[in-house]
């Protein structure tokens, strides 16, 4: 049984709207433009509504399954993952991520999953994961170069040469080493390689993403135009409280248009990234009780608000 209570009244279960024909067309259009998100071609079937299954699983053709198993076995062996005694292979359509990949899961004698390797339909590894949540008895790495060296080695074992903007962070349970994709000196925040290592440097997981980029606009608007656009939006939305935001200098980035500021436009981030001026607005004073930060992404070509993000 499911009951929704909104404004104090019990109402029938919320049903998110199905994409309109216009949105469906947009998704299909994106699919045509994008060609291939790393991990597989975008499908027009990618339209997804929260509450529906986010993934659709199927069995790949035997030859494709065999090829995926062979490739995954090799990658797992190089990464030191437990292959188990047999594999399961599923073709996964990730509706929100708008990509398709083959997921190869290693299984032990009792049918328990030991490792996961995901391969794009073109055969490139996009994720690998050591299952089971174990840590090691070795001493924790001190951070810095030793951590990066281990992460580079893990990436190499998976056939990936890391490049881009490097960050190293000590997460709650892992070292998190990320190389953010950079295209012509402009960052692509949604893309790149992230390697997670257990505290002693043992490989835990890696994940790779690379979205298609729309064409660079013929002309790029002045960053001041983006700042002015952000200021105007904040004044409209927050009125006198708008002065409580501290605006950062706009930065160029390739971002995914989304519906953060335009509900009903689409569901989740779009697959094709656009060149944007990203304006970060940090709340100060009592406004921080309402929200901490906004990011507003303006199309670098024409100044349209493409989307953004919120920190509660």
């Amino acid at each position: 049984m499911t009951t929704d209570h909104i404004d104090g009244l019990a109402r029938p279960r919320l049903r998110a709207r199905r994409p309109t024909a216009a949105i469906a067309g947009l998704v299909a259009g994106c699919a045509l433009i994008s060609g291939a998100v790393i991990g597989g071609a975008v499908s027009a079937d990618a339209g997804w509504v929260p509450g529906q299954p986010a993934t659709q699983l199927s069995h790949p053709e035997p030859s494709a399954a065999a090829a995926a198993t062979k490739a995954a076995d090799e990658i797992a062996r190089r990464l030191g993952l437990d292959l188990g005694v047999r594999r399961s292979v599923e073709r996964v359509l990730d509706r929100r991520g708008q990509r398709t990949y083959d997921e190869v899961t290693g299984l032990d004698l009792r049918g328990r999953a030991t490792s996961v390797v995901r391969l794009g339909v073109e055969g490139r590894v996009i994720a690998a994961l050591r299952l089971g949540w174990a840590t090691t008895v070795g001493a924790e790495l001190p951070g810095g170069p030793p951590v990066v060296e281990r992460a580079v080695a893990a990436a190499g074992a998976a056939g990936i040469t890391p490049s881009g903007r490097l960050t190293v962070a000590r997460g709650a349970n892992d070292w998190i080493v990320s190389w953010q994709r950079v295209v012509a000196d402009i960052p692509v925040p949604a893309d790149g390689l992230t390697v997670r290592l257990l505290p002693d440097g043992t490989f835990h997981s890696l994940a790779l993403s690379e979205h298609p980029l729309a064409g660079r606009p013929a002309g790029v608007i002045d960053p001041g135009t983006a700042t002015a656009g952000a200021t105007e939006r904040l004044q409209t939305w927050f009125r006198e409280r708008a002065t409580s935001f501290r605006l950062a200098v706009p930065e160029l980035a390739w971002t995914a248009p989304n519906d953060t500021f335009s509900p009903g436009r689409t569901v989740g981030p779009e697959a094709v990234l656009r060149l944007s001026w990203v304006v970060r607005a940090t709340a100060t004073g009592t406004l921080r009780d309402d929200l901490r930060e906004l990011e507003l992404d303006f199309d670098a070509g024409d100044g349209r608000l493409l989307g953004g993000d919120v920190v509660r």
Partner: protein
Amino acid sequence: MSRPIRTRPPIHLPSRPVASALLAAALLSATILPSGARASYQASVDSNKTAFSSLCIGWDDPHPARMLALAVSGFKALGYDVSSYSGTAFTRAGVLSRTFLDWGFYVHSHGDFYWNPTDQRRYTGFRDDGGKCVQSIVYSKDIAARRLGRQSNLVLISTCDGATQGTTMPGAFAIEKVKAGTLSWNGPEFYIGYVGTAYDNDEETFETAFWDALVRGSGAGRAFELGLLGYFTHPFDADWWGSYIWMGRAGPGTVCRSCL
């Protein structure tokens, strides 16, 4: 060579304390709650929509409704008797009146280590909705006081700082901050929160993958790990406590047979 994060005896499913808790829970369910095997496993899903609507911030942010829909469908598919609350239905008083009977709990809202003037200390907490822009804080201590140590099963705190070091929220749901890995068992429980601040799109990316994997039978630990494989646009981290091999399903102690 690897070992579980915290050494515990080899698997005893369920352990004696767990069995006691389950027995107590079963008796409680049978005596207080409506009949029906699954109907007794209440889950509450709260999402703060008003704070992120045109009433308070000038535009209608779609994330709160979407993440509520994800959680509702997830709990429902896992067999819980789920109800969702937003607007004036999501109040501090409402959360606290329901919490004793909640086996599952989800909230999407503001979260922080909030200063409690009475106790002169900070607790992890979140804001309610209430249909207004100035919102009450639900402290972990409030929940703890109402739950009286009653065990919970699946808890996802979709706010900032729900799993930041020093969080007091897991204890409010009687979830010990212990990771029972593949060779151990800490009862049918799993708590997830975010470390530090988190952006909405990243939270949604994680939660979409987590619920999807959990509903498909991955087990809570594996679903958590698959959730972290998503592509995030900002530095993002989450943490968990509970039993890696628990299935997340309503009912006593369902172990993931396909988990290590």
